[in-house]
């Protein structure tokens, strides 16, 4: 082997170049509106439809200041945080327990439960939203954190991922721990989950992002402004002067900020989580 052939030669490959160009175009089409929204939120109202420069000619924070001053944004953030954390903790706890039970325990109805979870995964949650509304209204939980959280706890995919993970663990781990005197709860919380925190972290991140971004249910469940989440509250910020793009977009940026930061910090975990769930969803 000569030294030359050790490094791959730069060959002209029209296919690869075309593919790269197409990917770049797609990325641009995807990214540009986001960028445009971001810069528009820094423009004055009268400039939003007249100034088409890529960087605002007179950048301003007026829209942000207005949105923060004229809304309950801090409370909405708090509501979003409470409900999203609540949903994440409860979904993970319940899914891990359910997945563990279906994977590791023998009890009557185990198969039936499993099929039910698989079947529920086929029903889009939005198809049930009217039922949810009626039930939550009946138990007088509209306009409450619990009312927002409860219907969002339906997470068959998380259960399925946990079950498959537990299924894949060698039987010896379980038996060694049983010989050591572990109870089922100790097995789950001291061995099975800690053995691979990666799965739990990944599921936590996407559950949290999903809960934070959810709109339809929190929108239906809250009429009281003090109970709204960020996504719902921002959409309610309206202006007597009609559509104020700058303010709307400033609100959108504020609403999406925590999730964007989460993406930035946990990029690798998020990708892992998406791969995990994509495996289930096919």
């Amino acid at each position, binding site marked *: 082997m000569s030294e030359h052939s050790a490094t791959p030669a730069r060959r002209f490959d029209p296919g690869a170049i075309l593919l790269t160009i197409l990917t770049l175009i797609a990325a641009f089409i995807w990214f540009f509106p986001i960028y445009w929204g971001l810069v528009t939120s820094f423009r004055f109202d009268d400039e939003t439809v007249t100034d088409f420069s890529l960087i605002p000619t007179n950048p301003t924070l007026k829209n942000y200041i207005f949105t923060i001053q004229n809304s309950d944004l801090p409370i909405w953030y708090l509501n979003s945080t409470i409900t999203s954390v609540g949903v994440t903790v409860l979904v993970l706890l319940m899914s891990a327990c359910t997945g563990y039970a279906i994977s590791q325990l023998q009890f009557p109805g185990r198969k039936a439960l499993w099929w039910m979870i698989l079947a529920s995964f086929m029903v889009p949650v939005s198809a049930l939203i009217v039922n949810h509304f009626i039930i939550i209204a009946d138990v007088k939980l509209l306009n409450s954190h619990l009312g927002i959280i409860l219907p969002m706890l339906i997470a068959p995919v998380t259960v399925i991922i946990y079950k498959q993970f537990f299924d894949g663990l*060698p039987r*010896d*781990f379980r*038996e*060694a*721990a*049983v*010989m*050591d*005197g*572990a109870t089922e709860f*100790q097995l789950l919380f*001291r*061995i099975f989950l*800690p*053995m691979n*925190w990666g799965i739990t972290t990944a599921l936590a991140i996407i559950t949290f992002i999903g809960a934070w971004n959810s709109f339809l249910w929190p929108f239906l469940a809250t009429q009281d402004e003090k109970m709204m989440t960020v996504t719902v509250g921002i959409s309610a910020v309206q202006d007597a002067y009609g559509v104020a793009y700058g303010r709307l977009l400033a609100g959108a940026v504020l609403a999406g900020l925590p999730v964007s930061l989460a993406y930035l910090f946990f990029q690798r975990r998020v990708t892992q989580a998406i791969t995990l769930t994509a495996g289930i969803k096919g």
Partner: protein
Amino acid sequence: MAQVELSNISKRYGAVEVIRDLGLTIKDGSFCALLGPSGCGKSTMLRMIAGLEAVTGGTIKIGDTDVTHTAPKSRGVAMVFQSYALYPHLTVAENITFSMSLAGAPKAAQRAAAEKVGKLLQLDQLLDRRPAALSGGQRQRVAIGRALVRDPKVFLFDEPLSNLDALLRVQMRLELARLHADLKTTMIYVTHDQVEAMTLADQIVVLDKGKIAQAGSPWELYNQPANRFVAGFIGSPGMNFLAGQGTAKGITLRDGTELALTRSAPGPVELGLRPEHFTIATDGPIRGRASVVEYLGNTSYAYIDTDHGPMVVEADGAGIKAGDQVGLVPDLSKAHLFDASGAAV
């Protein structure tokens, strides 16, 4: 310290009976090897003693206690798994003391126990590592340490050395023998490797399709096999079998050769002869042609095609080569005779 007593144990999975009416007593302080071909039910036996598998029938006593329906952790047994089953997220010390931590033992006591066991098993430098950073032999020792720390009445091993390479296996075998000599605790050891069983155990139980073919000391199994199965299973290379008809004075082989024996049985019988119980002579009663000669250093084995089928004989110093015509003289005082049912006569 306790003896283990199995009475009328049976086990079925659905319609398949894996263990049939098995009775066995393992004496206190004994090192007992369960030996047998793959699928004969060795692991199942061990798992029933451990309590990981329920018995279909019969009783298990450890010491004076009937533990047939006792939970695994309360039986006073500890098990070392073939895969070691070390928890990857815990350090060596935490792995060793996991049972103590489950029981809520204080941290200091746990550390002390880990250090004591670590010293015994030469793991003291590795206590804060994770299993992924250990060699196969070290992992094996951690698995043993995890059993050791529970101070059990009985140790159970399921093929603990089968994941190690040949050299390490010999070394760990010695360490296990030393451990047993130190602790004098009852040990039950599943293996399909007869060398392990012969070297470690004072009692070997040979299982065949869920039944005990023979239980006894290594010497008994080798020199006084109770049946054809044990005779053929123990020893490497294996025993040679020659079919023939039983006569009052001994056996008539298929080619008409008559051999005089001190024992006899009527009807079709088989003569069993170990490879070392032949001398090679040109005028021996059994004739054949050497097909392969294996030289092992300390000795050599000749594989010989005879009228009675292929045979293997120890041929140290006989100077035969592949292709030679040879005659074999059996040492009939060392011969075994098996009747039509396979039982030793």
